[in-house]
């Protein structure tokens, strides 16, 4: 043997899944949602998606270069951020705002902390919220879903209609009538909203793939959606005229996108199973608090960001008890 051997610490076998593969899986699973966006909002949606992805990749490369760090495009995480950001934006957003969002997501949301894995907040959501607060008009100017022949008619989201109706003394029914949609349409995605959040069907299909690939774990979606159903259900049973049904809450706004993709972001959620459940419950609780009582019609993004902030604390208090530790004995 004239060449040198490799030496490393045990173990010497490695599982197949790598970071870049996981990120690629997430991107692949978002394809149905992208397709739905294209179907309902037409070519502008495609441009916006490509712009966000391109922007994120470019800013990622730029930041790494400025910091004198090795390039990290190959881990595919910027791709995921770009995709998720695009799907969180209204289809009629001016192009430069999308670029600005990409810069915020990658720069402030992620690279400033040292890159992948270190950011405490979900980068795409940081960008979305920054845009929402900076450009409230453009960020809430929704185009109605018109299929491929998009004629960019302005319209309000079902949640927006609901909030307006309730504030002006209307009822849930009048709000639903104003959106002109049925729950079935919401499920397929035929409603106004951010590009990726409209079609629950497409999102569920993608999530099923992720679940099969074992990238997605059940805790956050189940806890998140479960607590939303529970809370909205209680209020709905109490007064159906002024509180929308659980199904309405599940299918509208960013609920599906948030619960299946944004809240399940590995980097910004807890590492333990118990922690993930607490995280999901917290997301659901805050989302419903904002939706029912807040001034914003939609609270998913804020809820996830707030729970992102609580993640280090959740991790600390759900630290697993070692096998055989005295307090853990009862569980066995």
């Amino acid at each position, binding site marked *: 043997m004239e060449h040198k051997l490799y030496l490393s610490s045990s173990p010497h*076998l490695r599982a197949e899944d790598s970071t870049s593969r996981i990120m690629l899986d997430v991107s692949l699973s978002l394809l149905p949602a992208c397709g739905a966006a294209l179907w309902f909002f037409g070519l502008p949606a495609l441009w916006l998606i490509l712009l966000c992805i391109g922007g994120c990749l470019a800013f990622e490369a730029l930041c790494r270069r400025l910091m004198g760090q090795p390039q990290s495009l190959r881990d595919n995480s910027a791709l995921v951020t770009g995709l998720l950001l695009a799907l969180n934006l209204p289809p009629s957003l001016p192009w430069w705002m999308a670029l600005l969002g990409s810069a915020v997501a990658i720069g402030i949301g992620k690279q400033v902390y040292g890159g992948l894995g270190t950011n405490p907040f979900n980068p795409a959501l940081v960008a979305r919220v920054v845009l929402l607060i900076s450009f409230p008009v453009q960020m809430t100017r929704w185009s109605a879903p018109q299929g491929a022949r998009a004629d960019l008619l302005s319209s309000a989201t079902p949640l927006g209609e609901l909030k307006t109706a309730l504030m002006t003394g209307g009822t849930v029914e009048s709000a639903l009538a104003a959106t002109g949609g049925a729950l079935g349409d919401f499920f397929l995605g035929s409603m106004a909203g951010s590009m990726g959040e409209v079609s629950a069907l497409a999102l569920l299909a993608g999530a099923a793939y992720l679940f099969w690939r074992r990238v997605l774990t059940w805790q956050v979606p189940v806890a998140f959606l479960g607590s939303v159903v529970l809370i909205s259900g209680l209020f709905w049973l109490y007064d159906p005229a002024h509180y929308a049904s659980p199904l309405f809450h599940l299918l509208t706004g960013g609920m599906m996108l948030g619960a299946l993709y944004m809240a399940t972001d590995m980097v910004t959620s807890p590492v*333990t199973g118990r922690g993930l459940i607490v995280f999901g419950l917290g997301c659901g609780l805050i989302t419903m608090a904002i939706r029912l009582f807040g001034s914003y019609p939609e609270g998913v993004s804020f809820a996830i960001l707030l729970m992102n902030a609580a993640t280090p604390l959740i991790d600390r208090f759900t630290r697993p008890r070692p*096998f055989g530790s005295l307090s853990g004995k009862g569980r066995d």
Partner: protein
Amino acid sequence: MKSSAFSGGVHPQDFKQFTASLAVESCPLPEELVLPLVMHIGAPATPCVEVGSRVKKGQLIAAPKGFVSAGVHASTSGEIRAIEPRMHVNGSRMQAMVLVPDGEDAWADGLEGAGPNELTGDDIRDRIRAAGIVGLGGAAFPTAVKLSPPEAKRINTLIINGVECEPFLTADHRLMLEEGERVLDGIEILRCLLGVDRAILGIEDNKPDAIAHMDKLCRKSVVEVKALPVRYPQGAEKQLIFAACGRTVPSGGLPMDVGVVVQNVGTAAAVSDAIRKGRPLVERICTVSGPGLVRPANLRIPIGAPLSHLVKVCGGLRGRTTKILAGGPMMGMAQAGLEASATKGTSGLLIFDETAAQLRPEGPCIRCGRCVSACPMRISPTTIAAYSRLDMIDAAEQNNAMDCIECGCCSYICPAGLPLVQSLRYARGAIAARRRRV
């Protein structure tokens, strides 16, 4: 009785197809045998023969020093050529006895066995100690020590480890298939010695032939053969105890705290030899395998055979060798060459070529939590590794770093390719050093 599943664990590809169906073959004697004075956990043995003296197979050449120690026996007849530092499988040079075989392979005189009821418990224990038997599963803890629990600890269950959960390795598998009687005899001796009437032989269910065979043999005895669902690290002591009889060894405690003694099947076979034939531990079965080897095999090797000799017996290297491991791929030690020699604990020698050894480049932790859910000791490897990297030893200790058993599940599953086990080992080393100082 139903078997409980321990939490965590992983399912690596087992690669046992290389050698699982190959009968154990004898390994020819090498030109020299290198017997390190430390082949066990505990104090090094002290040489008790002079350089240049002629020794017979089975003769004690280095005596144990203290209670936790084990003697070294000549694994063939020949001449002690030197006592000098030689490369050990642990990677450093350590004092070893170099034995040049004379080719006769003649047993020492006076090695006599005993019948089933001739010996008292203390006699058996003394014979096991005198035979230099250590745990043959890999940890190499002196067996006699394990068999001498303090009075206060009541032992009521003997668990025999036939799990062999490490990929590639088939030594225990073949031993049970080919010499099941010897294993069973050893189990019976150990059982009587400990005075327990419950013995469980745990075997993973990827070895159905061994399960069937041992089940048939054990029908007449009280030994219960238990098929365990495949999961790494089933063979780790605490996990095996939990899987086999549902008891939880307390954190920082020993199996005896829950009334259990665990022994490996190979150890049981060695105990049988020591009692029935009076023969000390001079050989073991070692799986020599891996894609980088011409002819993988299960070899019955004399203790102290150089690794290079084992490779030669197996037809030599094939392709571009990238990695050499002593032991299994999950917990075994990487070697810088073939210079070292097999010790009592060397259950396998694995040769990887470039298809197997490519570790993925390290990336940042993405907090996926897979290491946390894979950890059979239920600690948080990624958290401890982060602290370890910054030398935050206090924080690592608070996060239960000392519970780590270095099974390798976390590093195996990590998508970022982080050397988590190494970080944990580093933290554990620092914690232990600090505890010694205080």
